């Protein structure tokens, strides 16, 4: 079998087979898509992944439970602590550990902070893919502020290894609440500019409206989740469907759009950022300034034999983990359900028939992160 997995059709001379990636500025990492191009129109598309396969699942079988958490961090590396939560929740379920209320709220605050950070990275890179240079620099500047807040508390910028069984590793920095409040004020001002630059730009309209339409039925059947699913009109959000941590205590909406096109995916991510700001505002009020930040977890984590699937709604969709314990201090099997992994499967559905430039816009609206896809 050819390594391209896309053979030229004999006798067909109007189709050109183009290899896009793994080094391509618009693939958000190391995706490789082999495209059949007829002029600018895509006739065939075969995605290839695995260029960042880092044997997460095998190596996690050889690590003790607390040592697995930093590995989960490195999956969806744009959204930091969000990856730790499903694993932590699953083990807490198996151990029966109680998490203090304050710890739940702190976890949720970090969760939403990283959602904002991840969507900011998405916005910058998506606009870069569409050809605009400046929004990338603006969003990264805002992201730096979020990472600065995270770093003050957790000690690391991107991959903080902050959650632990029964709460969080250490108490928040004394400035934390004030800084988050300042950040939200700042972001609310900036979101106005971002709307002008992205959602209201006529060029963005021309490039995205009606491009890459994903129907509701197809989205569900393909197992797509997160903003991509909600942009197709399905109000499925793990935060509402299977609430975890402090989400039952806060009010927020699930933005959905019936259109299912690239612009709808852009729009849903924007609305999610507004919802994140809203959740964080409520949590600033609700979270006690002092109190316990960690419950009583056993010193040596040894869950009873059994299995547990837990999922959270991370920036890209349903991020799940399926843990099997055999009663020892190392997991028998850890299976990660990557949201971006599922979302990326729709590449052939959306690419075929689209223009090559559209394919770039569609890919940026799927927002893949390869740490999670290839694991």
């Amino acid at each position, binding site marked *: 079998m050819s390594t391209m997995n896309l053979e030229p059709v004999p006798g067909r001379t109007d189709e050109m087979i183009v290899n896009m990636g793994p080094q391509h*500025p618009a693939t958000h990492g190391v995706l490789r898509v082999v495209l059949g191009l007829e002029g600018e129109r895509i006739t065939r598309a075969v995605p290839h992944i695995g260029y*960042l396969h880092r044997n997460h699942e095998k190596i996690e079988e050889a690590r003790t439970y607390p040592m697995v958490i930093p590995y989960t961090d490195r999956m969806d590396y744009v959204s930091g602590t969000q990856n730790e939560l499903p694993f932590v929740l699953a083990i807490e379920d198996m151990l029966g550990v109680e998490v203090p209320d304050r710890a739940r709220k702190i976890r949720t605050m970090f969760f939403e902070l990283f959602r904002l950070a991840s969507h900011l990275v998405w916005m910058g890179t998506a606009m870069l893919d569409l050809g605009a240079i400046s929004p990338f*620099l603006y969003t990264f500047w805002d992201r730096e502020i979020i990472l600065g807040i995270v770093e003050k508390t957790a000690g690391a910028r991107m991959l903080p290894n902050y959650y632990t069984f029964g709460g969080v590793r250490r108490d928040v920095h004394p400035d934390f609440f004030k800084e988050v409040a300042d950040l939200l004020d700042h972001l609310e001002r900036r979101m106005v500019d971002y709307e002008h630059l992205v959602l209201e730009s006529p060029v963005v309209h021309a490039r995205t409206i009606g491009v890459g339409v994903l129907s509701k039925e197809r989205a569900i059947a393909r197992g797509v989740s997160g903003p991509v699913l909600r942009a197709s009109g399905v109000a499925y959000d793990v935060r509402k469907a299977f609430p975890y941590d402090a989400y039952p205590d806060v009010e927020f909406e699930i933005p959905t759009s019936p259109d299912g096109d690239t612009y709808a995916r852009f729009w849903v991510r924007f609305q999610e950022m507004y919802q994140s700001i809203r959740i964080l505002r409520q949590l600033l009020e609700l979270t006690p300034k002092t109190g316990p930040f960690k419950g009583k977890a056993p010193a040596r984590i040894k869950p009873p034999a059994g299995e547990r699937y837990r999922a959270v709604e991370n920036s890209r969709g349903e991020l799940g983990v399926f843990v099997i314990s055999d009663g020892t201090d190392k997991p028998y099997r850890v299976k990660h359900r990557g949201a971006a992994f599922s979302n990326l499967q729709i590449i052939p559905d959306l690419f075929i028939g689209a223009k090559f430039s559209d394919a770039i816009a569609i890919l940026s609206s799927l927002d893949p992160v390869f740490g999670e896809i290839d694991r």
Partner: protein
Amino acid sequence: MGLLGSDERPRDVILGTLDDLINMARSRSMWPLTFGIACCAIEMMATWDPKIDADRFGMFFRNTPRQADVMIVSGTVNKKLAKRLRRLYDQMAEPKWVISMGACANQGGPFRQGYSVVEGVDKIVPVDVYIPGCPPRPEALLQALLLLRDKIADRELRYKKPREIPADYEIMAEPGKDGRIPVL
């Protein structure tokens, strides 16, 4: 890297001065290749954001390897990617340099023992500067870029080249621990 492709250090005064000038220009106009691999790629992008802004030092990304001078290996290189990475390195026009960013690119990082991970990108391409960290901060990458600049500008250092690796080097044939070859 010598003057116009030669690897010998010129002994002549005039040529030597020209050599200094050219290498000064090279050191002050290093264009990295847009090649993000993993977590470190986000920090690599953050090095060009307004907070750090490596463009102050005349560095900006080129997408095609032909026009790039520096390859920043930003992330874990696995055995599937290794061939492609080496190919990209071979496609870059001389003179070229490599920065190994982060623990994964240096020696495999937290994934070191894994079956699919190359334990150090210096098994595939010659590396000039290593940056520790998982992931390194943007400041660390900027420091590495400035170290590389100093290396190119320095009369002695620029002729001290890292170990050359043949282009047909097969990472699959590399024996692992105890000299055993893994089942692949």
